[in-house]
């Protein structure tokens, strides 16, 4: 369970690194499909509950496939759409960070910002 100060710091890391960089939606969730933190740019109306359940299933399926081919994990997933793309990244063994962004933002920038955010989140979690 996360304490109030951890949740505040996680919110802050997501908003500063990702939402302010122009991403549409960011969901930080556990592998069971529960949302821990969610943020958006206020311009869309995502059903984040259903999205998190499907994202957890998607990530879990790919993770199981990795094991079948002898990989310990595929820690990163990327789905590219015409207008919107989705980037999945494992934060630690129990959590996932999902970022949605439009075509005006490059995947390279997203990967960089996501990596920074995950580093910050892991520090927050490690410090309790």
């Amino acid at each position, binding site marked *: *369970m*996360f*304490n*109030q100060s951890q*949740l*505040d710091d996680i*919110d802050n890391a997501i908003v500063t690194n990702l939402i302010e960089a122009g991403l549409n939606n960011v969901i930080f969730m*556990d*592998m*069971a*499909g*529960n*949302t*821990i933190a969610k943020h958006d740019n206020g311009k869309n109306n995502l*059903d984040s*509950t*259903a999205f998190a*359940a*499907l994202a*957890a*299933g998607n990530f*879990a*399926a790919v993770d*199981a496939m990795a094991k079948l081919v002898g990989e310990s994990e595929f820690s990163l997933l990327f789905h590219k759409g015409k207008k919107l793309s989705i980037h999945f990244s494992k934060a630690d063994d129990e959590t996932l960070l999902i970022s949605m962004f439009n075509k005006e933002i490059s995947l390279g920038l997203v990967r960089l910002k996501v990596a920074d955010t995950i580093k910050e989140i892991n520090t927050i979690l490690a410090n309790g």
Partner: protein
Amino acid sequence: MALINVKTKEVQIKIVYYGPGRGGKTTNLEYINKKYREQIKTEMVSLKTQDDRTLFFDFLPFDVGQIKGFDVTIQLYTVPGQVKYNATRKLVLRGVDGIVFVADVQKEQRKNNIESLNQLYENLETYNLDLFKMPFVMQYNKIDLKNSGIPILPSNIMQKDLNTALRAPAFEATALRGGNVIPTLKKIISMTLTSIQGQL
């Protein structure tokens, strides 16, 4: 494990409907979705094959109000029942807080019920969960089939086959008509809420 968010004052609880293929797991969720449509804010998500069999899971979230100042959301999932999909069944069980086992009372399904329950026990072990120690409700579905002359097992045999050791609350049900679907749901919700109350 239930997710308790002290900042947003939300609790998310995961309840999984488990059981053999074509036993009525999805039908339970479809009935709940229909019955409580006005209280459910989102559409039910179903990942199914072209012939309408569950491929990965069904998902139905709904709010049940507040407990100790926390908004509680129940997330209902089903697993795919077909034998070949055990890998995906296992994935859906991750983080489960409560389980409903939907058994099929048709005589010819007897072996499948037992095998499915044994596999549930094994699948939970991979997450270090013990079926005997978690909120669990048994449902004996399709009891109305006896009216159509289809051989079914009486509840005492079902109990003996599946529930002798577990001694879980059990309901006879007709999920297609909604019979005992809601009592089953209410029972698993109340058991699961009781089990997590100490954490709030």
